[in-house]
């Protein structure tokens, strides 16, 4: 019974947050659309995204090919839809890794201070000292040109942002009353960190996550654009933009515009999502 009441309260809160802020509603609808495309994309795509068809290469948008076809006669619309899964998958996994590792490292640095803090702080400073995209290129080039390595590279270059935010937020809360109270209630250090501090730094971290999602998508697309990471003929927004860029001059604009717009919408959506997400995870907004 209490479980049901609890879910109900969560749901009511979600509805309240969305109703309060129309921008959040817009962001959430976009987000739902993108997620849906990622889940069911391959099955709703009208054409095979990989099958080439030289006879109707470089067709402009028409009813049968909504976004036109590319230089190998592949349907751009299908490719844009199918690419959602891959792009989002890379960004999600990268952000999840950097969020978890960053929270743990930053939390430890903020909570214990001293040497832990110094070592972790210097590591994140060292990462930040590189031009981040070049670092990602280097990592992918060194580890090998696979999707997993793009994920690791994106995760590593995003790590310092998570470490910094979680370290600062943790060190504010390290000596707060409820942490002392938890110690009196019999909680050890790790338990305090995981049950008292980390849940309470979620709101600022969530803003970071959503901004970072957009950034991670761009980063993955950027790596593919310069030829690292995802390989043709796989559908991916960055590769599609790269391949299409040769045809801009000759007037075949649809090759670049549609994957570019998809990329832009996805990034835009995650940037908008930040505030809404914070409102949802912040208990103070629950009334």
């Amino acid at each position, binding site marked *: 019974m209490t479980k049901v009441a609890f879910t109900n309260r969560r749901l009511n809160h979600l509805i309240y947050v969305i109703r309060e802020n129309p921008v959040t509603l817009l962001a959430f609808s976009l987000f739902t659309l993108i997620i849906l495309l990622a889940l069911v994309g391959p099955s709703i795509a009208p054409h095979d995204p990989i099958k080439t068809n030289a006879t109707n290469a470089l067709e402009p948008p028409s009813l049968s090919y909504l976004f036109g076809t590319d230089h190998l006669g592949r349907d751009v619309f299908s490719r844009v839809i199918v690419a959602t899964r891959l792009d989002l998958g890379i960004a999600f996994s990268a952000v999840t890794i950097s969020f978890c590792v960053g929270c743990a490292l930053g939390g430890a640095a903020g909570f214990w201070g001293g040497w832990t803090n110094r070592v972790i702080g210097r590591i994140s400073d060292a990462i930040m000292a590189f031009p981040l995209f070049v670092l990602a290129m280097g990592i992918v080039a060194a580890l090998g040109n696979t999707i997993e390595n793009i994920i690791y590279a994106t995760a590593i270059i995003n790590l310092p942002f998570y470490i910094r935010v979680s370290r600062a937020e943790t060190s504010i809360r390290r000596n*707060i*009353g*409820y942490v*002392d*109270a*938890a*110690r*009196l*209630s*019999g*909680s*050890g*250090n790790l338990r305090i960190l995981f049950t*008292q501090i980390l*849940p*309470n730094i979620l709101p600022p971290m969530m803003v970071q996550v959503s901004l970072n999602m957009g950034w991670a998508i761009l980063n993955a697309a950027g790596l593919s654009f310069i030829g690292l990471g995802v390989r043709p003929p796989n559908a991916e927004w960055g590769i599609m933009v790269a391949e299409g860029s040769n045809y801009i001059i000759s007037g075949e604009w649809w090759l670049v515009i549609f994957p570019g717009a998809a990329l832009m919408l996805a990034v835009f959506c995650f940037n908008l999502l930040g505030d809404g997400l914070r409102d949802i995870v912040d*208990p*103070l907004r*629950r*009334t």
Partner: protein
Amino acid sequence: MHQTYFLDIKGLSVEFRTRNGTIRAVDDINFHLSKGEFLGIVGESGSGKSVTAYSVMGLLDSAGHPVCGQVMYDGIDIIKATENTMQDIRGREISMIFQNPRAALNPIRPVGYQIEDVLKQHQLATRQTAKSKAVEMLRQVKIFEPELRYKSYPFELSGGMCQRVMIAIALACSPRLLIADEPTTGLDTTTQKATMDLVKELALKRNMAVIVISHDLGMVSNYCNRLVVMESGKIVETASVNDLLACPKHEYSKRLIAASPKQNSCLENLTISPEKHLIRETFSHSEKKTSTPQLSKVHTLLDVRNLTKEFPIRNSFKNFFFQQTNSYHRTSCRAVDDVTFKLESGQSLGLVGESGCGKSTTSKIISRLINPTSGEVFFKGINITNYDAQDFVEQSERRMIQMVFQDPTDSLNPRYTAHESIAEPLRLLLGMNNSHELQLRIFSLADQVGLSANLLERFPHQLSGGQKARVGIARAIAVKPELLILDEPTSSLDVSVQAIILQLLNQLKNVLGMSYIFVSHDLNVVRLMCDRVIVMNQGKIVESGKSFEVFNSPKNPYTKALVEAIPRFEK
């Protein structure tokens, strides 16, 4: 014939627009003020006293607006006045000092400059004369070495000094009306006395009218001629101080006066009808049986020997470059200096002193949240300082020593409901996982501290201050500790709530047979709650003994000053 007053408020109502509709914060209030008069506005949080002050200043924020009535200041209707007129009036005619002086001062600007800003704003000083005028103001508010302090930043000054600077800023343009909104809340009693004496002296010299807003009836009645008592937006009584204290007419005034601890009050008199329902008959029977054997045999529960705690003074730049050569810089400060005392079981001990005297550090060492630099704490004959604070969780003594924290808001995890907060120690320290047993225990605890069961599912921000304090107490007594450390448990509560919480704590102590260490700066409260008292100053114990002896005939000069500074109702 209608008499015109200096400040005349007629039928003022202020409404606030919020998410849940309009709230009337101030409802049809009328009062007036003559030149040079001291008026006190007393009430508890949410009574609308600050909103009244902000209306007089024309400083209501955008959500609040006066719906009817007028505020006449020397012939000007402040509610109808334009923003330009108000900018001229604010600071020059009407000034205000705020509750938290440190927050009201600009932290990155030297205090002297901040005084100059006000003077220049109102064209009362030129660039050449501003500095000397600012220094003169600092001298008038009795800041030691004003020329040096002129360049100080707010963080370099103590709370009392900051409040003096605020007063200097407020009085720089010689206003004719000063509004002091909780001017001494958060300051020590001796500082409070010094600050208020200063305001009184300066006001008399300038024939300035003063409105003092406070929840502290004792302080207000010491300095004001007339009092206005407010309750939920309405004025319930306006009377001269002597009349109000001698024979309050309104029910609320009576309750308020009763709840303010006085020299001769006892716990039972704090509320007009003590909350008797709190401890149920059936419950107290079963609890008493278990606790009587402990009570009958008096033994030393806590033995603190030569406790010392030093904190390193952080100066990272110097430490970084000159690690060894710190011979003439003090590298540590002694927060607790050679403290020794004993506590018998079932007794309650008061720990009194001003902020920074080391009382909170002492209580944190005893509750084993931090490690002492040297010294020992024996709890029931076992040296608990042998264990590191980080490892104390695993010792069986953890359960026996519990603590109630000063700030009820800050000490509850905002993501836990009241129920989860109380369940935490039961799960971890008593290993209660059986949800039925746990539920019963939590309900009985909530019942014990007078928290109704439907509040248990709420988050801290949905509870009032008093309710949060009850959750904190319930959590602390959940594991049946033998020693309960109360670190200023009522300092952030209204007096009427404080009265109820103090009675509750006293009843719990008798029923559960706990010993208390009661840490507080409020001597009246300590005298009510404790058999013995220890007075601390700068980390050292300066006096200890039976409560009434210490307070009635203090021997140490510091204790004397402390006792002197308690606001007295009797003139």
